[in-house]
């Protein structure tokens, strides 16, 4: 009986909140894994948040919570849900389970989880096909390396990062069949000093072009200080490394965020999954710089080919490290599902994937 009463009270409260919300502004909340000043991942999400404010002005009110540890994120997400936020973006893979749980408890709040794979009627997922950009920077790295060894600073060995490494390596291999890759995991999304140490370790071991899948500009800046080259991650990091940055893979969340906020306002919001790449503008390449004209031209052509769908970084046939062919579940390429759950290195990567 008490449960039913409790349920009734919840429903009544939710209805009241819902009807009150109709006249009020839509409150939109964001949960970031790093600080907005990381110049990378979280910074770009905050650019998207600001775009919502600019576009929708007085109809919305936005809030963000930054540097939320993944293990302790449920509290922060629930905090936003409880304070009347109608639309909540949680912007890191590790927020998945907490977001799912909170979404279950707050059926009238709309949730959006970045890079996730679990959905519900009030929980949508979205991600950017960063691996498309990584194929391009891989090709550039393959052309630009003099030592024949390229490097990668990874955060955590999760599918999103592993797919990035594979795509980067496949790109490099496509123009430089003998290229080698060295990979270092820092086991943190954001620890500038440790990222710099990881970059130094790679450079000390003969790497001369560095890519990263961590959130601070430290690895790129280390490359700059050593007179080597690298790529910006998530955001254009040129100001940190004007001589070293060859290009950057930029996440542009703004159009998606604005569209979703509008949908939530006019009631057309539906759960779903969006995975945007270069063609949708969710992934943007920074200007190609510090490279010879022919490399630049190659990069631009590859970008065009990926945009038009002519080129897929994970086209078949594709072999795993041991040479076994990967089953092709997409059309002449891996399916999205396969890429999003990638847990193997491709052939040619001479390293063991930590699992």
């Amino acid at each position, binding site marked *: 009986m008490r449960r039913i009463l409790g349920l009734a009270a919840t429903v009544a409260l939710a209805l009241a909140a819902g009807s009150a919300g109709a006249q009020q502004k839509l409150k939109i909340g964001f949960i970031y894994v790093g600080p907005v000043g990381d110049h990378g991942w979280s910074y770009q999400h905050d650019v998207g948040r600001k775009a919502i404010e600019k576009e929708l002005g007085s109809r919305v009110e936005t809030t963000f919570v930054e540097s939320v540890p993944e293990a302790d994120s449920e509290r922060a997400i629930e905090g936003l849900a409880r304070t009347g936020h109608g639309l909540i973006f949680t912007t890191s893979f590790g927020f998945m389970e907490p977001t799912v749980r909170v979404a279950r408890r707050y059926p009238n709040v709309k949730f959006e989880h970045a890079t996730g794979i679990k959905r519900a009627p009030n929980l949508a997922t979205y991600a950017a096909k960063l691996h498309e950009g990584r194929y391009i920077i891989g090709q550039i790295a393959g052309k630009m390396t003099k030592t024949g060894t390229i490097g990668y600073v990874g955060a955590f060995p999760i599918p999103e990062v592993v797919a990035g490494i594979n795509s980067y390596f496949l790109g490099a291999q496509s123009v430089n069949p003998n290229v080698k890759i060295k990979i270092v995991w820092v086991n943190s999304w954001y620890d500038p*000093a440790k990222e710099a*140490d990881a970059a130094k370790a790679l450079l000390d071991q003969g790497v001369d072009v560095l890519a990263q899948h961590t959130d601070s500009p430290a690895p790129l800046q280390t490359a700059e200080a050593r007179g080597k080259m690298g790529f910006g991650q998530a955001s254009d990091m040129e100001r940190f490394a004007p001589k070293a940055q060859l290009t950057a893979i930029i996440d542009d969340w703004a159009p998606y965020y604005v569209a979703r906020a509008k949908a939530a306002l006019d009631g057309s919001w539906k759960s779903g999954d969006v995975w945007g790449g270069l063609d949708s503008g969710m992934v943007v390449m920074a200007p190609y710089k510090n490279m010879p004209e022919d490399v630049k031209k190659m990069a631009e052509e590859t970008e065009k080919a990926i945009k038009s769908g002519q080129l897929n970084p994970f086209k078949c046939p594709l072999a795993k490290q041991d040479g076994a062919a990967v089953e092709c579940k997409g059309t002449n390429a891996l399916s999205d599902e396969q890429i999003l759950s990638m847990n193997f290195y491709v052939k040619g990567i001479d390293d063991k994937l930590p699992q």
Partner: protein
Amino acid sequence: MTTFEAILLTIVTASTPLLIAAIGELVAERAGVLNLGVEGMMAMGAACGFAAAIGFNSTAAGIAVGILAGTALAAIFAFAVLGLAANQVGSGLALTILGLGLSGLIGAPFVGARRDPIPHLHIPGLTDLPVIGRLFFGQDAFVYISLALVMAVVLFLARARSGLTLRAVGENHSSAHALGLPVLRTRLLAILFGGACAGLAGVYLSLVYTRFWSPGMTAGRGWIALALVVFAAWRPVYALAGAYLFGTATVLQLHAQAGQIGLPSQLLSAVPYVATILALVLLSVLRGRALGAPGALGAPFVPDR
């Protein structure tokens, strides 16, 4: 420069901020004050030091302001725990939160700015020696200061009259007070010294280690420094060993990954912590006697008049 030499240089960079912060906290704790605000004071040092270095276009100004910022935050802590006899654990945690937040506010306008590297020592002949040249004679000022600090603290605690006073205050503040020793003044100075060191460690992070500032860039180093003090059994030389061991393990595990030795990276990431704890515990055990915490650590002192 060989790979070996490069690794040694990276180790020094990784160890120095931990050492500076730990040595400051060690002095505070030997005086009986547990300051859990190291992370916050470091963050303030990093932000204010960087802001001043950019603003005045001077590294020296950055260092001075960074030290001041750490000291100022420590002064707030001292006011709470000495003046008001507040709980040290609570005040320290609050200080960390305050420092991280305030540093974010102060540093915000300097996001995206960067500094050129600071000069390194160069003695013709000596610095050019193979392998050891740059290691011993080619470091930046912070490294030499950190080592000098350890020597100074060792001598101070063992030889100086005021150092003995500080230890007496930390072991038993009531007895020290009964003997007429200035308990609160001693603790105040120890806390301020700890703050200055944490500030300096923070400046090192933003001006030398990464050469840009970003919020939360201390990334837990203050806590590691705190843990080092405990595992070093409140001995400065052990803290030196611990800081360098931690730095060494951190850098070597990254190299081990790049060198593809085939161990899982998650395991390797844990190596610095495990190795440092093991080594320092072993060190304490081998000494054959209990190296306990200062007797009055964490206890507030209210003089009875």
